[in-house]
């Protein structure tokens, strides 16, 4: 069969198709369609929750800094934590904004490139958080003990302990990253851990970058 015949056959097929498929209009009109899980929505909900929690944390840190404003040994760790949480929130807010302003009626390559770039940002954000979080552990311990239990971590634990804590946490992160990288394939039954493992192992980033490249190649006529 020649190409023209193929196209004619496809056209005939379309006519037959319309005769043997039917839309359940009842289901379409029901509001149950509205909470359907759009590809990006679960990501957005989790991001909004994280954003809200971080805003609460920023507020509490401001309150803490104001309360202990005359004691720099407590104010400095609180400001460091505050900057960290603000940086996290800026990144989260950007992701939410990008995800919620997608117009699916825009050209396919435009939307797919944008979605791929959101994935790249998300993965970079996860990796950055994973690596930087241990550094924040000691300031969190100082602020947390003082804020919640009125305990001075410098006196109760000592500077050496706090410094050692930082080292141990960094080492723990390194080992965890190593384990996640090596066992990424075995963690398939836990989607959240598997996703984290793929992010840490660099596989998600490679996939997301490949998607960006795929769209660009398509755009360039490749």
């Amino acid at each position: 069969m020649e190409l023209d015949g193929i196209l004619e056959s496809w056209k005939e097929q379309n006519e037959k198709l319309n005769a043997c498929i039917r839309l359940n209009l009842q289901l379409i009109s029901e509001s149950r369609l509205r909470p359907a899980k759009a590809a990006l929505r679960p990501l957005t909900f989790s991001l909004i929750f994280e954003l809200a929690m971080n805003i609460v944390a920023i507020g509490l840190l401001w309150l803490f800094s104001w309360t202990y404003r005359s004691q720099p040994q407590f104010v400095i760790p609180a400001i460091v934590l505050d900057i960290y949480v603000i940086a996290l929130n800026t990144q989260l807010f950007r992701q939410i904004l990008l995800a919620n302003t997608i117009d699916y009626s825009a050209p396919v390559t435009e939307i797919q490139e944008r979605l791929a770039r959101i994935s790249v940002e998300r993965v970079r954000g996860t990796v950055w958080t994973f690596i930087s979080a241990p550094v924040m552990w000691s300031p969190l311990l100082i602020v947390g003990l003082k804020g919640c239990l009125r305990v001075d971590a410098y006196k109760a634990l000592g500077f050496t302990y706090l410094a050692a804590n930082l080292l141990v946490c960094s080492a723990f992160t390194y080992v965890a990253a190593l384990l996640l990288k090596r066992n990424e394939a075995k963690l398939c039954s836990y989607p959240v851990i598997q996703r984290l493992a793929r992010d840490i192992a660099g596989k998600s980033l490679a996939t997301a970058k490949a998607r960006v490249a795929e769209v660009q190649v398509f755009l360039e006529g490749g």
Partner: protein
Amino acid sequence: MAIKGGSDQFQILIESHRGILYKVSKCYCSNPDDRDDLIQEVIVQLWRSFPTFDESKSFSTWMYRIALNVAISNLRTEKVRSKHIVSADDRILEAVDVTANVSETALMLYQLIEQMEPLNRALMLLFLDGFSHREISEVLGISETNVATKIGRLKKVIQQALSTDGQGIRG
């Protein structure tokens, strides 16, 4: 001019273009149980974007844009989604004996499409559905020259597939 859209008009338009939902879901969803989810997502996005639909433009082109965007995005997240079975009564697109009415040629084309990259699948579908180069370039967001080049390549792919499977293809 944006449509003053009511749900009745929306339903009529979707109903008359239901074949697009079938074809896109078949080409982008290997698991039949996931197809209903995909169709549902496409309809949700169509309904959300409907108020901005320009009546002076083709509905099928607009619908294809949204359906393809949702399907390709869905394809990327398919691996992490939970799997479930949809009962026949809950299906949005009810197919009556579709398999009996699918010709060998169409089956071969669907198989060929499934092997392609997601963006090429979109191009192939639009080409088979008889869209002009200009319409395809509007849906995909690439130049008409690029569309022409890619369609030239697609034709070769189809002809190669025909020469390989030619014995079984009778239309």
